[in-house]
């Protein structure tokens, strides 16, 4: 099978249209299963009580927020290297979802932090890195929005995504290091090494649901982008 067949927006457009409902359906089923196990089956946490259940939204969102940036940078690099139009469109379509998950991770994190840590926000290393990640997403979206010519927008965005991707580990470790210097041991979130298996399965199901949702939404969005540019 020739995979490059689908590298053209024209042929990818109907394929994306056919695939999107399946991923959306899978997302809905997995989310229902994950939420059911998370809210009704998984036991109450010994230390945090019922509040911990926000983990089933928070952790998958945080995972995806980071993973989507990597995927975005991958498509961006592919687009720059092979000069394929669809890659830039994929990066374009992924960015809002990534920003959304970053925001959800920050939002649920602060809601979780209030009852457990007693504050909505701490300058914890992970929170700070996540905030910088949100800024990187917003910068990418703003740059693409500011450029009228779609080809230049794709390529400029791609370069920015790659520069950001190279910088993310540096930013993360500098923040971790800064945090240990300033913060002391006010907040330490040490998770138990072994998680209860029902909690873990609920979290993994939710993570899968978020994956499927991201794929479905980006396929729909990439169809919109293809349409906007009049390529299908």
């Amino acid at each position: 099978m020739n995979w490059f067949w689908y590298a053209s927006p024209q042929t990818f457009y109907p394929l994306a249209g056919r695939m999107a409902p399946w991923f959306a359906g899978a997302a809905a089923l997995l989310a229902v299963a994950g939420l059911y196990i998370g809210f009704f089956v998984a036991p109450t946490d010994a230390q945090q009580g019922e509040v911990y259940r926000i983990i089933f939204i928070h952790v998958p969102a945080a995972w995806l927020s980071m993973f989507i940036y990597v995927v975005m940078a991958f498509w961006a690099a592919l687009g720059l290297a092979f000069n394929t139009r669809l890659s830039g469109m994929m990066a374009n379509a992924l960015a809002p979802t990534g920003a959304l998950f970053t925001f959800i991770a920050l939002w649920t994190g602060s809601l979780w932090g209030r009852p457990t840590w007693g504050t909505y926000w701490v300058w914890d290393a992970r929170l700070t890195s996540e905030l910088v990640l949100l800024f990187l997403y917003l910068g990418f979206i703003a740059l693409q929005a500011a450029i009228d010519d779609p080809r230049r927008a794709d390529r400029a965005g791609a370069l920015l995504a790659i520069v950001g991707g190279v910088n993310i580990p540096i930013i993360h470790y500098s923040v971790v290091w800064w945090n240990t210097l300033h913060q002391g041991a006010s907040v330490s979130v040490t998770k138990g090494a072994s998680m209860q298996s029902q909690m873990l399965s609920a979290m993994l199901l939710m993570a899968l649901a978020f994956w499927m949702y991201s794929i479905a939404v980006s396929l729909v969005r990439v169809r919109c982008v293809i349409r906007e540019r009049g390529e299908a």
Partner: protein
Amino acid sequence: MLDAAFCVVRRDLLLAWRRKSDVATALLFFVIVTSLFPLGVGAEPTLLRAIAPGVIWVAALLSSMLSLSRLFAADHADGTLEQMLLGAAPLGVVAAAKAAAHWIVAGLPLALIAPCIALQYDLQAALWPVLALSLLLGTPVLSLIGAIGAALTLGLRGGGILLSLLVLPLYVPVLILGAGSVDMASAGMGGEGQLLLLAALLVAAGAFAPWAIAAALRISME
């Protein structure tokens, strides 16, 4: 190749010299911003001493960023940039030279004037060299990373604001290490570790940023 680099640096410095007010404005901005903080947070000497490294570094970041939008704008407007793209000298070398000239104009003066600001903030004299050295090592990284953003936003409407949105998140490690070196030194632990890491950042940025600037210029000019 080096001739081309020196030529670009000399030309940019000459242009800056002919329009001295631009250079002075950025420097004045740095001085004014740092003078505003004591008015805002109060002139408690212990508080000032505690916030001095961070305030000076953030002001340096903003001041260096303000002059970035001018980095390629004039060359873009009069067509010089196109000739640089077409010319025989590798674009990466030209880009590195432009960033170096920007640093000499917008970064170096900050490092030189920083001890005076430190005086206002009642920072111990022993910390002045650390502050100046951290700025000497850190501001070239700001110029190099900033030049990528300046090249990407070349000729866009609202370029200045957009540039800050793109570039400031990438400045985070430099800010942390730069302010951290002075903090560590003031805590009596020596800031060498941070200064070495800053130097490592400078080497890495010096090696990779020119490529990215050149690629960004080609994207913006095609």
